């Protein structure tokens, strides 16, 4: 069981590594941000799986923090990047 969870964590890390290609390639900042969001969710999953595999329940709190706070980078990203002359910016 432990080995399975470790393997699962490895697989998810490999997913992140593959997704890095999109960050590197772009082409737009939005693509990169989308990838970062994916990594965030994957990271939450990895932390949860690691908590199970290593029998370290407190790691779940770290996953909780990631789930709670990943949105902040996105908010920061979209904040005033929205052009001011745009009529219906998401945050006016």
């Amino acid at each position: 069981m432990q080995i399975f969870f470790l393997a699962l964590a490895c697989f998810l890390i490999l997913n992140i590594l593959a997704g890095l290609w999109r960050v590197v390639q772009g082409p737009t900042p939005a693509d990169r941000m989308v990838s970062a969001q994916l990594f965030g969710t994957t990271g939450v999953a990895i932390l949860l799986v690691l908590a199970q595999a290593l029998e370290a329940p407190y790691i779940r709190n770290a996953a909780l923090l990631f789930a709670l706070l990943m949105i902040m980078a996105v908010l920061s990203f979209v904040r005033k990047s929205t052009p001011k002359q745009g009529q219906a910016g998401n945050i006016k």
Partner: protein
Amino acid sequence: MALFLDILVAFSLVAIAWRIMRAPGHFQAVVLFITFGLLLSLAWARLNSPDIALAEAAVGAGLAGVLLLDTLRAVAQPGKVKTGAHFSWLLLPCLLLAGLLTLSIIHIQPDSQGLARAVEAGMQTTSLEYPVTAVLLDFRGYDTWLELGVLLAAVLGLLCVRRKKSIRAPLLPAPAEPVGRWLISILLPLILLVGGFLLWLGAFAPGGAFQAGVVWAAGGVLLWQAGHPSLGALPVSLWRTGAVLGFALFWLLAATALIRNEPMLTHPQAKAWILAVEYAAALSIAVCLTSLAIGGQKSEDRNQKSEVRDQRSGDRCQITNNR
């Protein structure tokens, strides 16, 4: 399998760090840095250090990303991405250094216990239950105190650069559409709750003032991102008190120990003292980090004229006697 995981995490860290350095665009570098923080917290989790994983999660996912993205947007210069390509040969000496340090690492005997035994012995006498918290607040409380001083000094420096009395970041108008409001109304109470939970947890398990403070700071930044007016309405004196409170309580702890004719920073036996210091420290960390994250903003509510006047008054220090 565990070994494979280690190698994978290590490889990803180095690959991302390499890419951060080599990335042609700054935005890409910042996104990669956020990912780097994520992988670091995986490494902390793997290395049985949930305290660090918590702090890294809050700092890396929340504050560092916001700080870097905000700065990047503020200093964006379209079409001007320049790297010092002529310095790329410096990689060689750096790799040489890495080689040398690696050679010496091979000689480290990793079975030495460090101070773990001493901490274990100390746990018998201290009133705290969780070793990391005990090290932070009791055994090496001086470090923690001075580190609160570093935070305070950073805020002071920020005020000095911005020439402000207190952090009054330009407040964004409240989000117009329901999604933003809905998000904030869900996340903010949760953030407060989770921060408090971590603070409470720190007494006997991974968690504590640092993590709680950073999480609350993230809440403050979120409040600001949502354009909530409460931060701007905070009285200056209250803000100052919050920023200095943890530091001041540590000072009191040190001073009262002197009065009792004990060495500086000796904890009284009452546990309430330590808890008060820890809670105040969490509050101050939250206030200071929030200020650091949002206080670097250029004040946009001021018009051009006041900005110019501000610069002039800063440019020349004059003496009071002359006037």
